[in-house]
């Protein structure tokens, strides 16, 4: 393979693209749409994950101290909580603050603070945040062993539900990405095969007049690559447009909904889509050719 032969291949690829315009555009559009679907599914799953993570990050462990613990002792316990593995943040809530929070939470059901100013039934407590939501139950267990702790609450039941849901969501997300990815690969490969198939006669002739498999394959490879890359570029372009519209729309209407806007993650997806399109186009062509090269 020397320079002129590469030039020939490139020229042939471009020429074939131009002359089989309908086929080329059809397969390019298929690549674009398949990757667009894949990209959308991917973003959906990532956002679901992001939401799950957000929800998990709001989990915390409430540690109620014994009534007997003095305020000073209570404040001195902080390092003990900080030592526990998995604890990210430790916040002290005095019983006075607790009562105020309770009244706020009850939102008008009554003036609890006034009514119980002297007989505050609440204990002092600590709020612990975890590095990782999965550690919450374990942290609760560790905390229970500490002296001066009366009880530990972290939304038992609810948290387990939430965690099993987020775990399920992550697995389901992987399955979806995998399945949609497979479907996209299949759709692209099939279209590429169809376009190669429709030119099997030409391929047979090339073989009969003495072209090597490599010489025949190269322009197809390049054309496939071109089709795949262009299709993928269109897909990425549309995806980016749609997604930024979506993000804007969400920020206008449901701005409390967390969405992924980390450019690095987006760029990573785009990069993968581009690679996938190019690879499938090129390798798909080359593989589809194989059965017609045996003349």
């Amino acid at each position, binding site marked *: 393979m020397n320079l002129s032969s590469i030039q020939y291949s490139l020229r042939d690829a471009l020429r074939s693209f131009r002359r089989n315009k309908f086929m080329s555009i059809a397969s390019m559009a298929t690549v674009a749409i398949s990757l667009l679907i894949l990209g959308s599914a991917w973003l959906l799953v990532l956002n679901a994950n992001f939401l799950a993570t957000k929800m998990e990050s709001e989990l915390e462990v409430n540690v109620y101290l014994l009534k007997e613990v003095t305020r000073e002792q209570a404040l001195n316990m902080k390092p003990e909580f900080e030592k526990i593995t998995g604890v990210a943040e430790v916040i002290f809530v005095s019983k006075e603050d607790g009562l105020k929070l309770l009244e706020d939470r009850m939102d008008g059901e009554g003036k609890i603070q006034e009514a119980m100013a002297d007989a505050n039934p609440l204990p002092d407590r600590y709020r612990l945040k975890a590095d990782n939501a999965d550690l919450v139950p374990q942290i609760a267990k560790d905390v229970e062993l500490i002296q001066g702790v009366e009880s530990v609450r972290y939304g038992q039941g609810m948290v387990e539900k939430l965690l099993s849901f987020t775990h399920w969501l992550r697995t389901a997300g992987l399955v979806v990405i995998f399945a949609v990815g497979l479907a996209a690969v299949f759709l692209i490969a099939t279209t590429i095969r169809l376009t190669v198939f429709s030119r099997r006669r030409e391929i047979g*002739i090339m073989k009969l007049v*003495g072209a090597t498999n490599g*010489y025949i394959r190269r322009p197809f490879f390049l054309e496939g690559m071109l089709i795949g890359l262009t299709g993928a570029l269109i897909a990425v372009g549309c995806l980016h447009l749609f997604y930024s519209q979506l993000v804007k729309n969400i920020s206008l209407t449901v701005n409390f909904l967390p969405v992924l806007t980390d450019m690095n993650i987006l760029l990573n997806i785009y990069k993968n889509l581009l690679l996938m399109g190019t690879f499938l186009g090129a390798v798909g062509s080359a593989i589809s050719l194989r059965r017609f090269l045996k003349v």
Partner: protein
Amino acid sequence: MLVLYYIISNTRYNQLYKDVVIKMIQMFNVSKTYEGDVLVKALDDISLHIKKGEFVFIVGPSGAGKSTLMRLMIREEVPSKGQIMVEGRSLPRLRQREIPHYRRKIGTVFQDFKLLMDRTIFENVAFTLEAIETSRSEIKARVPSVLELVGLKDKMSCYPHQLSGGQQQRVCIARAIVNDPLLIIADEPTGNLDPETSREIMNILLAINKRGTTIVTATHDKEMVDLMKKRVIALSSGRIVRDEERGGY
């Protein structure tokens, strides 16, 4: 004819002149059966030898096996039985990756032309040259001159479907001779040509043959065969029924 000189003046041929008696094609008890719903015995126990530099006509009724014989020679098919050697090499034993290199040494005119429909006439003829990595400048010189030879210089930028039947056939002939082959296999190269043009084409083949190239032609053109007085191999139902030096149809 100056053009022809340009195409054919190749040292290879001068060398060939000296050992012209050496065997080009040898077939030993070759049979070819096409499998399918019904078995078709297209060739039946064919043995023949063609020397370097010979000019051979293959004649015979429609369906006699002429094209099949030629398909074996370019290794488009392998024999069901028997052995076929070209320049001393066994074709059935050729490895897949050697086949293209073998075919490049042969110029083939196909009965159904086999032109690339999405390429112009120029590109069709240039294709074989490009495949063997001929330089651009040489292609630009050679292709128009061969096309002129077959009278199609002004159709260079047309696509095959824009040509008449005879013009397509001449493109096919141009493609077969452009890369200066050792052996030309022409399956009815004048089937779609008028007598005048046929004679011109035959003269071209003759000139190429004079320079040492072996030529095997299947034809139905009785007049031409009778006129040329070359070796004639007659097939009928897959068997050789006649093999005459300087024969008639």
